[in-house]
C-alpha cells in the first residue's frame, strides 16, 4: 500500500512540475505577439485615432473612420501628446478650442495618472517617510526618520533603531485630537521627493474615516476629510500636481474610482466603463490611465483583448467613447491548442506582483486532451492499476507522462 502511495506521490510531483513548465514551454515556442492598436483621441478632429504596429517600423496611422495619415499628420492630430515634436517642427497651432498652445502652458495644464494591478497592494515593507510640506528649500528635503503606523504612529530613528518618543507622541496627539481611531487600516502617500510639493498621507482609521496627515514646519496637521465612511476604500493613490485639482484618487472594492478634489475633499466619481459592461474596469486585471489635457480628459481602460477610451469634457461630462478590440489571449491559436493539449496549467505569475501558485483549468477543451490521454493509455499500455486511469482522468497528459514513466511496482 505504502509503495503505491509512494509511487503516486512521485507521479503527483511530476504532474505539478509538468503543469508548471510544459504549457509555459508550449507558449514560448508557439505563441505569436498580437499587434495591438494604440487608441487615442484627437481633440483636433474630435475623433478616435489609433496606430497599429506590424513589427520592424511598419506602422499604420489611422482614425476609426478608416482614414490613413502620415506620421507627421498623425502627430498633429494629437498635439497634447506630441507638442514637443510639433514645436520643434514649427507646427504647433497657436490655439486649440480657445486654449493657448505653448509647451509650457500645455505642460502646466496636463496630468497623467495610472493604476496597474501591481500598484494596488504590493508586497512592500510597511514603513513610511513624512516630508516637510513647507520646507525652506526649492525641492523636497529627505527627512531622517521613518514612521510606522498601525496601532499607534511611531517615528523611528534609523541610526539607533529606536522610537523617537517626542515626535511620535506629538503626531499621535494631533491625530487623536482630529478624531482618529487607531489602528490605522491604510496609509497612502506618494513617497518620492520627485514631485513639486508634498500632500502627506491619506489614512483610513479603524472606523473607516479618512484623515489627511501632513507635516508643516515640523508640526503635524491632521484633518478629517469627511469622506463617506460607507465607501469601501481599497486603496488611495496620491499624485501631487501643480494643477491642484485633486490630491489623488480612491479605488474602492467595487472597482469604482473617485478623485479627491481640493474642494474640501469632495469626491468626484470618474467613469470606469462605457456602454458595454464587458469592458468595465476590474482593478485586479486591468490598467486604467487618466489623462488630463487642457481641453478634455481621457480615461483609458485596457485589458486582455481591448482598449477602451472614454472622453470627458472639462466638466466631467462624457462626450465620446470607443473600444478597440483584438484577439484576447485565450482566443489566440497557440493558447487554444494549449488548452486542448493540457487539462490545466499551473503558474506562479500574479499581476498583483506576488508569486502565487495557482491553477488555471481548461474545462471543456481540457476534457478532450484527457479523453485522448485515457484512450492512449488504454490502447498502448494495458494491465495497469485502476488508479492510473483515475490519475489520467484528472490530470490528462501530465498524468499520462507520469504513469507511463514511473511504472507500477507490485
Amino acid at each position, binding site marked *: 500500500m*505504502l*509503495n503505491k*502511495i*509512494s*509511487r503516486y*506521490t*512521485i507521479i*503527483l*510531483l*511530476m504532474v*505539478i*512540475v509538468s503543469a*508548471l*513548465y510544459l504549457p509555459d514551454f508550449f507558449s514560448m515556442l508557439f505563441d505569436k505577439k498580437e499587434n495591438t492598436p494604440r487608441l487615442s483621441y484627437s481633440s483636433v478632429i474630435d475623433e478616435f485615432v489609433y496606430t497599429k504596429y506590424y513589427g520592424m517600423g511598419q506602422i499604420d496611422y489611422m482614425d476609426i473612420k478608416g482614414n490613413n495619415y502620415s506620421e507627421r499628420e498623425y502627430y498633429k492630430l494629437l498635439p497634447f501628446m506630441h507638442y514637443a515634436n510639433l514645436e520643434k517642427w514649427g507646427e504647433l497651432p497657436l490655439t486649440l478650442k480657445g486654449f493657448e498652445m505653448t509647451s509650457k502652458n500645455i505642460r502646466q495644464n496636463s496630468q497623467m495618472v495610472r493604476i496597474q494591478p501591481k500598484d494596488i497592494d504590493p*508586497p*512592500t*515593507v*510597511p*514603513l513610511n*517617510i513624512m516630508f516637510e510640506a513647507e520646507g525652506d528649500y526649492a525641492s523636497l528635503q*529627505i*527627512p*531622517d*526618520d*521613518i514612521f*510606522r503606523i498601525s496601532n499607534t504612529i511611531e517615528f*523611528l*530613528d*534609523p*541610526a539607533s*533603531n529606536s522610537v523617537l518618543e517626542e515626535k511620535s507622541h506629538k503626531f499621535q496627539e494631533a491625530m487623536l485630537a482630529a478624531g482618529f481611531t487607531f489602528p490605522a487600516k491604510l496609509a497612502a502617500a506618494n513617497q518620492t521627493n520627485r514631485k513639486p510639493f508634498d500632500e502627506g498621507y491619506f489614512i483610513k482609521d479603524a472606523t473607516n474615516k479618512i484623515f489627511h496627515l501632513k507635516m508643516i514646519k515640523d508640526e503635524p496637521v491632521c484633518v478629517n476629510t469627511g469622506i463617506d465612511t460607507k465607501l469601501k476604500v481599497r486603496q488611495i493613490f496620491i499624485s501631487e500636481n501643480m494643477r491642484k485639482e485633486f490630491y489623488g484618487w480612491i479605488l474602492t472594492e467595487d472597482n469604482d474610482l473617485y478623485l479627491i478634489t481640493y474642494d474640501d475633499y469632495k469626491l468626484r466619481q470618474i467613469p470606469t466603463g462605457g456602454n458595454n459592461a464587458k469592458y468595465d474596469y476590474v482593478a485586479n486585471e486591468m490598467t486604467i490611465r487618466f489623462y488630463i489635457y487642457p481641453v478634455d480628459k481621457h480615461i483609458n481602460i485596457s485589458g486582455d483583448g481591448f482598449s477602451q477610451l472614454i472622453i470627458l469634457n472639462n466638466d466631467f461630462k462624457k462626450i465620446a467613447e470607443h473600444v478597440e478590440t483584438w484577439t484576447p489571449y485565450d482566443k489566440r491559436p497557440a493558447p487554444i491548442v494549449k488548452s486542448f493539449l493540457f487539462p490545466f496549467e499551473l503558474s*506562479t505569475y*500574479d499581476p498583483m*506582483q*506576488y*508569486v*502565487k*501558485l*495557482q491553477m488555471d483549468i481548461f474545462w471543456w477543451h481540457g476534457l478532450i486532451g484527457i479523453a485522448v490521454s485515457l484512450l492512449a493509455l488504454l490502447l498502448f499500455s494495458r494491465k495497469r492499476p485502476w488508479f492510473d486511469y483515475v490519475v489520467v482522468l484528472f490530470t490528462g497528459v501530465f498524468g499520462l507522462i507520469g504513469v507511463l*514513466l*514511473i511504472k507500477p*511496482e507490485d
Partner: protein
Amino acid sequence: MLKAILYKEWIKLRWAVIVIAALTVLSLAYTIGMINYYVEFQGAFQNWMYVIGKSLLLKNIVFVKVLPLITGLAFALIQFVPEMTNKRMRLSYHLPISEKKLLISSAGFGYMFLLAEIVFLFFGLWMVISMTYPTEIVTKVLMSTIPWFLGGSAIYFMTAFIILEPSWIYRIIYAVISYGLIELNFRASTYDQYQNLWALILIVAVMPLTVMFAGHRFRRGTK
C-alpha cells in the same frame, strides 16, 4: 534500533554538520560586518530606504538562500552515496528493521540535522538584522527566507530519493522533476512575495514518501 540508525547517520554527518554550522556563523558574522559597512557609508536613513525600497538586504544575504541548498545537497550526498556505492544499501536493507522504517528514519534524522541548521540560520539572521532594523523589515526579510528553506528541504529529500533509486533512467527523470520543484521556491525578487506558501509547504511535505518507492525498487532488484 532507531538509536542505532541515528548513530550511523551521525557518524556520517558529524563533520558536515560542524562545517555547515561554522559556515553559518561566518556568514552571520559577515552579515553584521556588511550591514555596518552599508550603514556607515550610506548613512542609516538612506540604508533603511534602500533596504525598504530596493530590497537591498535581500540581495546581500545570498548565503541564506545558498546555505540551505548546499546543506540539503551535502547531507543527502553524505548520507546516501556511501550506502549506494557497491550496493552497500544491501547491508541496511538486511537489518532486522522494516525498510520503510529504515528509510524514513535515515532520511528523517538527516532532515532533523538540516532543520537544525535552518533553525539556527533563521534565528541567527533574526538576531543579526534585529540589531539594525525595525520589526517591519525583520519580519519581511524572515518571511522571504521561508521559501528558501523549503528549497533546501526539497533538495535534501529529492537528492536522497535520486541516490536511493537504483535505475539511472529514473534518476534522470527524478533530477528533472527535482529541478522544477526546487526552482519553484526561488521565484521571488522582493520581500515576502509568496502567497499561498502552504501549497509549497505541502509539496515539500509529501516528498519523504517518494524515498520509499526507491527502496522498494532496490529491494525488488531493479537495475
